[in-house]
């Protein structure tokens, strides 16, 4: 089977080169992209989503160009510290993706209310974002990205602005979601331990600018994973060595 996401020789630049020679294939798996702040992790996600054009190389998403995949509504996107639409209630935020680009296929199976329920937000369904905690807002952001049932899920440090306990809860939530339906997930984070806890594979990008792929670590630990597992810190150390 061909990979859902395939990048070949991709380079990107804004004013100066940001990324160079990126080769990355993602099948039905969770790939964590780890790198220091400002190395171009977000740019990589934007290239995959077709929001940024690479200066060279090719990007394939589900066998087509990213722009086509976008128009077909195949991409879920979760940003760090999602501000949502503050004038919409939780329910209205989750239904928003169904209201735009209506000509494209939308979700068949799970209703917006059901997504809200799965995220444990039923009691807050008529609340506005300013009435929610940061963790609840990220849950809404997850729900609204999943309501179109995307094959590809792009996540840009979705837990970075949350406190540790909330992060643990949401990590479990993410694992449950990924187990219930296989998708191609690209999960960008600067937190190595989080990457090892969540991903099937950790890809390290870095180096002096422009950044390139420095290495890759397969994570074969059985799920659910904990930090108490004997090999956990070995893997963390392995990722770290690629970073340095």
């Amino acid at each position: 089977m061909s990979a859902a996401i395939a990048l070949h020789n991709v380079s990107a630049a804004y004013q100066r080169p940001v990324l160079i020679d990126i080769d990355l294939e993602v099948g039905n798996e969770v790939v964590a992209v780890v790198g220091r702040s400002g190395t171009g992790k977000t740019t990589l996600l934007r290239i995959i989503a077709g929001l940024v054009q690479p200066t060279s190389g090719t990007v394939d998403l589900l066998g087509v160009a990213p722009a086509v995949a976008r128009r077909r509504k195949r991409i879920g996107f979760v940003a760090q510290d999602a501000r949502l639409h503050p004038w919409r209630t939780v329910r209205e935020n989750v239904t928003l993706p169904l209201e735009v680009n209506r000509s494209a296929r939308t979700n068949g199976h799970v209703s917006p209310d059901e997504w809200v329920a799965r995220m444990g937000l039923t009691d807050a369904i008529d609340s506005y974002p300013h009435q929610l905690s940061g963790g609840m807002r990220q849950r809404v952001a997850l729900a609204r990205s999943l309501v179109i049932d995307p094959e590809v899920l792009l996540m840009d440090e979705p837990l970075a602005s949350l406190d540790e306990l909330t992060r643990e809860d949401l990590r479990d939530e993410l694992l449950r979601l990924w187990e219930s339906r296989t998708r191609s997930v690209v999960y960008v984070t600067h937190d190595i331990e989080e990457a090892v806890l969540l991903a099937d594979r950790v890809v390290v990008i870095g180096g002096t600018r422009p950044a390139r792929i420095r290495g890759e670590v397969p994570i074969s630990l059985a799920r659910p994973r904990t930090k108490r597992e004997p090999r956990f810190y070995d893997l963390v150390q392995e990722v770290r060595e690629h970073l340095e």
Partner: protein
Amino acid sequence: MTARRTLTDLGVALLAIAAIAVVLEVWSRAFQVPSYLLPAPSAVAARMATDAGLLAREGGITLSEAAAGFVIGTSVAFALATVMAWSRPFERTLFPLAILVKLTPIVAVAPLFTLWFGFGTAPKVAIAALITFFPMLVNSFVGLRSADLQEVAFLETLGASGREIFRHLRVPSALPYLFSGARISLNLALIGAVIGEWTGADRGLGRVIFVANANLDLTILFGAVLVLAAIGIAANALVGAAERRVLHWHPIAVAT
């Protein structure tokens, strides 16, 4: 809740005006200030009661001119701001023109408008529209550009069209700016209408003030100014109430 807020706002404003009136009353009686320099508030009040019909009628005319100018000026401003937010070349072309309009002294062009549009309602509405245009243009433009970039990206990954992003994200994001623009423009529209009446009219509060000025008839002059102030305060309170209702999700509304 919002109705009570509006009433409280009005009450505070009236209280402040009453306090100033008391000070002026005492002042004019203690020093026997002649009424052609500064009329006692009691004399102004008496004159307002006598000429209540006139003030209400002329006030209504000024209000309708200002309202028409406000609607036209702010609508055109919002439409142009939309075009400017849409395309950089338009922004570069239109913004200097807008500044030109802004910097043209209204008092200088008011007589010209009378020449162009005659002595009727049209030149007053035109001046009110012109004077409300710029603050609304700037606020609309900044507001439409203020949309959260992460949210723009989110909608783009869903294949949302530019029009959908405009409707679902840019316009609601601009609302707080539109309201502050409206608050500024509203008062300016009243001033614009009065300036228009001042330079050539047979009706309206501006005309009343102009004639009173020529005759040193200060009681009716102050009466007209007070009616104008009352209209302005009421209009502001109305916009404030609408703002609190529409922007209930916004920190401004939550905080106040």
